[in-house]
């Protein structure tokens, strides 16, 4: 990504820092990791544990909150504070924690079923409020923990145990959904690309407000190979559209393809040779108007997938606004006096 790795993390300004040198090992627990051998979750866990020392935060001020599903076992393996909660509710629980404890770095770990089925409501509201949460959405397009039913991101026609004749639902595009929900930071990355994943995590950590990071994650038991075209060295360069802020969007093994404006506000994939370099769209993740980010999100097809940061804009966070209201009230009315409160209104005295 073209933007330099942020050296400061405004979102973490209120979180106490440590002087000690941390390594990935400091973030490992003594719990045996119990995902299926070959699960993409291992790679994500390693990336998160490997990246957290960069932040230099006191470990006790980091909290991982999860819902239910394979991905939601994540907190048990992180030597921080953590809560493995209930299906879909992690964004709500994390909201209460983040609103009362600005000194914490709060992460939500969720999956496509957890975040987009049962927890869809909480996800969109956490995003629109812009609560200072980092939401890692592990998307494997299948229900793993319940043994292989289709999920809200499964492609239509998916044959699973619960859909032997093919699923009927149109899938969610999590990036489009998050953008529609007024999210201020929306990104997509892949479990197997450690470098890209880490860079997206850095940017998410630096973002002040709600960050949604969709991580394509392979479920090798129930949906193996779902993202093969993005992982296979033979196909990945032609299938992956890497978004870099400020750069023309070009991709392909020989960077021969690009993204240009199409009809009606949409975007289209073009041959650079045919349209010329100047016709290529320059990615602007910081644009206030989410229209272009949304159009980019619609380029996700079985053959092409944009990855990177779609949108990263600044808007006041809900938790900070809430704290400000309290501070303003104290400034205007003074610290509340319980005796005065109870004696308020019409009173009378009996001697």
């Amino acid at each position, binding site marked *: 990504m073209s933007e330099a790795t942020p050296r400061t993390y405004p979102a973490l300004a209120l979180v106490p820092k440590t002087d000690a040198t941390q390594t990935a090992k400091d973030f490992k627990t003594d719990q045996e990791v119990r995902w299926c051998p070959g699960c993409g979750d291992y790679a994500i866990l390693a990336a998160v544990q490997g990246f957290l020392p960069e932040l230099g935060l006191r470990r006790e001020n980091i909290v991982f909150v999860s819902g239910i599903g394979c991905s939601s076992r994540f907190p048990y393996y992180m*030597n921080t504070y953590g809560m493995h*909660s209930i299906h879909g509710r992690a964004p709500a629980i994390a909201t*209460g*924690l983040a609103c009362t404890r600005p000194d914490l770095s709060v992460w939500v770990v969720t999956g496509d079923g957890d975040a987009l089925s049962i927890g869809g409501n909480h996800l969109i509201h956490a995003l629109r409020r812009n609560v200072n949460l980092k939401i890692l959405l592990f998307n494997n397009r299948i229900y793993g923990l319940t043994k292989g039913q289709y999920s809200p991101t499964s492609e239509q026609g998916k044959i699973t145990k619960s859909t032997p004749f093919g699923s009927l639902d149109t899938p969610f595009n999590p990036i489009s959904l998050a953008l529609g929900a007024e999210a201020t930071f929306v990104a997509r990355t892949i479990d197997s690309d450690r470098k890209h994943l880490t860079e997206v995590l850095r940017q998410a950590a630096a973002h002040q407000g709600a960050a949604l990071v969709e991580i394509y994650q392979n479920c090798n038991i129930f949906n193996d190979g779902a993202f093969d075209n993005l992982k296979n060295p033979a196909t990945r360069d032609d299938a992956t559209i890497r978004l870099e802020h400020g750069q023309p969007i070009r991709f392909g093994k020989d960077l021969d393809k690009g993204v240009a404006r199409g009809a009606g506000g949409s975007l289209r994939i073009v041959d650079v040779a045919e349209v010329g370099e100047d016709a290529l769209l320059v990615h602007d993740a910081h644009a206030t108007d989410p229209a272009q980010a949304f159009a980019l999100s619609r380029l996700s097809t079985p053959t092409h997938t944009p990855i990177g940061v779609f949108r990263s804009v600044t808007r006041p966070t809900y938790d900070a606004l809430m704290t400000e209201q309290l501070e303003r009230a104290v400034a205007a009315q*003074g610290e509340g006096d319980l005796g005065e*409160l109870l004696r308020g209104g*019409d009173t009378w*005295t009996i001697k």
Partner: protein
Amino acid sequence: MTKQVQQLDRVIIRFAGDSGDGMQLTGSRFTSETAAFGNDLSTLPDFPAEIRAPAGTLPGVSAFQLHFADHEITTPGDAPNVLVAMNPAALKANLKDLPPGADIIVNTDEFTKRNLAKVGYESNPLEDGSLDRYQVHALPLTSMTVDALEGLDISKKDAERAKNMFALGLLSWLYSRPTEGTIEFLRRRFAKKPAIMEANIKAFQAGWSFGETTEAFSVQYEVKPAPMPAGTYRNITGNLALAYGLIAASRRSGLPLFLGSYPITPASDILHELSKHKNFGVRTFQAEDEIAGIGAALGAAFGGALAVTTTSGPGVALKTETIGLAVALELPLVICDIQRGGPSTGLPTKTEQADLLQAMFGRNGEAPAPIVAARSPGDCFDAALEACRIALKYRTPVFLLSDGYLANGSEPWRIPDPDALPDLRVEFATEPNGPNGEFWPYLRDPQTLARPWAVPGTPGLEHRIGGLEKADRTGTVSYDPDNHDLMVRTRAAKIEGIARDIPPLEVEDPTGDARVLVLGWGSTYGPIGAACRAVRDAGFTVAQAHLRHLNPFPANTGEVLRRYDKVLIPEMNLGQLALLVRAKYLVDAIGYNRVRGLPFKAVELAEAIQEVIKSV
């Protein structure tokens, strides 16, 4: 002209009109005047769920009943002595509750052919003799108000709207109420609309003067102040008292208050009230749904806040899963259920106490939760403090049960000294407690069985909790059968043990030889007390006991119940406490059950008690 003044010991007034007639405001103003005068009082607002039902129809009738006396009273009264009926619908809807001889003040301007037809009156009841049993004062309240406001720079509609203040002025004169408070109130309320302010004050004063000069009323009444314990009082509704109780608990615990809530009748006023008090460090979060409301509260509890969610029965249904999680996490959380008529949406604005078993058992698995119930509007304050105390001390979700009657009803409340309120300070865990310097989140206090509350930000105590079964002491995930059995029993024992930490059940039995005990819980306290006094006045003996704690019950409950030949349990449900009592103590309790969306009438209850006494 000098009017005769007659002394009364108590009066029950019901103001009734269309939803848009301002009857709740009129009633609450009259209540404030009455409170300021020093009478004991009890109120019962009764309004439709529709914000504006079609004008002039029976479903649109909104009423406010007030009982005031020169002695202690505990109920809003059974039958009104006075009905103020602003339209034919209000007359028709309320007439059946009036005893013969009651005063009826009607607004004749609204008794038009059309309005009469709307509610099915074939002839005008003011003219056909059907009200002969009552003292009818037929007054053109609307036109008198409009006349009184002539010359003011307001629309005719605004003038007509002030008729409730005219009525209030008239009633204030009739019962010799002080008027300064209402005038001051109108000044404040309409400070930004001077013309409307003037109109309302003028209408109020005109109503008073009309009473003084008209020949329609020959008698003015006086109800002397009631002797009450010394102290400073205010009138308070249950929801306000509950909100204050939570703020007090926050202050007394030193923990910031976090309310995660979603609007629902009749609980919303607690959210409204708490959202005003940000200078007390109160954070209110209006969530996207009931589930997120309690979820955010639980997250705040994990972070060390005094966490509360407020709702009614349908909301509890949605919060159930999170309450189960809170049981597993063993974190403090107060769930306020302001009960209303059910099932499902039921009767949103009517009272009921049918969520007891939902609070007791409405979760998957063995998931015990303490239950505390308030008995009167003012008592919601103390009940809130007690619910917070148990939650904080035992690290558990606690149900605080109130209901629609307590929520909106009001009574005089002796304002407590903040420094005399219970000390709710808690100690967070700060040091590792395991044998090798680890932190064991499920190593319990041997007395309370509560686990340590280690909040994020505490170095060395990093730990993970969650809904999966935890290993005893260490708190790691455990699928061990014996461990699960132990944890289920330990969680149950923790809640049962609270019985050692609550006062014994007290019995009121003035003669000491009663053979029948009336056992109640929640808002039936007032009617049960009034009924027991009536029964005693009639020459019988009866004992009364009222439960604040419904889970666990006070330790002496079984012993108390077995002292009596018969135990009668009146409930606004089909026998939920009776079911628990029978199951736990093998006592053959008798139920008295009415589920009408309204509080019990003391007279009916007294009859039921006498029947049981006679059967012994």
